[in-house]
């Protein structure tokens, strides 16, 4: 059984649909990428899966259970954690408080989990009492992901985790994501426009204008001339 199955999902904002009949699946422990240009609906896809936005039609199954009428709170308790691209931390809370909120539903062992994520992101260790809004871009991103890890998710939804980061930080972040997947064994659904991020995955989908155009192993997708030129243009030089 897959950990996540999206079947024919149609969704949007108000009267405007953004996703049209999207289908994909992820196995336990797999890292899957959804790539595509700006505006293709990648963020919307993650929004719907996490419960922040309602789907209009279609089905989403998490470990066989339908997510369609579940609230974001219920979904996160099932083990599905979402890290948005923007507005992904609590700026007026301290770093520690951000992590604590990430573990809001966790009854015991919150301190241990904080230690765990600090082992992955050591930079956070020294900044526990700092206000999150004062962190640098890179530190924020790390905090955002760390917050998402606090519930020990079985599926992690990452929306452009390296967006806006300086090149050296990009590499670090990607390593961290790989480290997380290895250590915790969780599946990852990674949404990105950049080749580097996409390379983390074994398998990928190409989303364009709200529809899945291609599905294949990542290397095959990236080797595909058409896809490279059309969607990754300047990056491939």
């Amino acid at each position, binding site marked *: 059984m897959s950990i996540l199955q999206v079947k024919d999902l149609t969704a949007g904002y108000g*009267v405007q649909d953004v996703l049209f009949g999207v289908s994909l699946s992820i196995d336990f422990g797999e890292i899957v990428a959804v790539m595509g240009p700006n505006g293709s609906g990648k963020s919307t896809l993650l929004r719907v899966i996490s419960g922040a936005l309602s789907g209009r039609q279609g089905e989403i199954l998490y470990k066989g259970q339908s997510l369609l009428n579940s609230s974001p709170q219920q979904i996160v308790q099932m083990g599905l954690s979402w890290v948005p691209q923007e507005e992904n931390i609590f700026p007026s809370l301290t770093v520690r408080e951000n992590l604590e909120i990430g573990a809001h539903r966790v009854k015991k062992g919150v301190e241990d989990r904080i230690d765990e994520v600090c082992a992955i992101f050591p930079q956070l260790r020294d900044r526990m009492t700092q206000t999150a809004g004062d962190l640098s871009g890179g530190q924020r991103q790390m905090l955002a992901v760390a917050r998402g890890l606090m519930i020990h998710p079985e599926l992690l939804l990452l929306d452009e985790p390296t967006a806006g980061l300086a090149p050296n930080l990009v590499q670090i972040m990607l390593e961290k994501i790989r480290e997380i997947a290895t250590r915790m064994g969780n599946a990852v659904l990674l949404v990105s426009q950049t080749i580097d991020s996409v390379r983390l995955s074994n398998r990928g989908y190409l989303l364009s204008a709200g529809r899945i155009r291609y599905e294949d192993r990542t290397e095959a997708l990236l080797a595909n001339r058409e896809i490279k030129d059309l969607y990754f243009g300047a990056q491939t030089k």
Partner: protein
Amino acid sequence: MLNYFSSYLVIACIYAIMALGLNLQWGFTGLMNFGIGAFYMLGAYTSAIFTGSPSPDHLGGFGLPVILGILGAALLPGLAAWLLSFPALKLRGGPFAIALLAIMETLHLVIRNESWLTNGVWGIRGIPRPLFELVNPRAYSFYFLIIAGSALILTWLAMQWAVNSPWGRVLRGIREDEYLTSMSGKNIFRYRQQSFVLSSMIMGVAGSLYVHYTGFVSPQVFSPLMSTFIVWLMVMVGGTGSNSGVVLGAFLVWAVWVGSDFLTDLVPASIATQIGFIRMLVVGAILMVTILTRPQGLLSRRLFTAEIREKR
């Protein structure tokens, strides 16, 4: 009996004019103004001071003809609104409402306390009533109804024309999508200011009509409930954004109001004294129910319904 009815109609017409003014500010421009009574008061007192007979107690008594009184009642609130628009229109939504409420409260208190200007709580009497000498005093309501009714029709026509004019279309554009409208080069502030000023002038005229009808003005007449919030109720019930709707709302709400007067004769004395508060209770309840069940009001343009309920 007929006199009661024509008196009801006159006041309903005056409130309908107020409601049309509020509709311009709120329905078409999205200004949530909880201080409209300020302009109503300004118009009323301006008229009183301009046209009243001289008195040692207070300013005014210039004895000017009624027509100048009405003109003054339009211009002074307009000027006040114009001056206020510079600071006040920087605010939106709740803060704007509070700011205008503060203005109204201040004005109300000033009128009550500055006796040298307004004769304070004793009010100003002897305001000329047009045609009063010419007609049977008992039947005055009928004759004033001609004036009030014409004023209402004129205002309604003006508002209909304004709303459908290019100017009105820009206003609606601002209300629906301000960003987009500003991108097309329109000076948003100017349009909102014009709407605010025009609306205030209309309310000033309503105030003027009121005092020329009753021949008397005092601060008690302009409580926040009677000068501002009853008009809001009329607009909410009648239909935000619909000129015909708010006029209907005015007549309906005022009918309920006057109707409750009849009830005071039917109920025991202990309840009769509470009538004022029971009315307040009913106003509150009707407002709550209206927004719960039909926030767009009875007659409303479909255009605005979409904004009242956000799509999830």
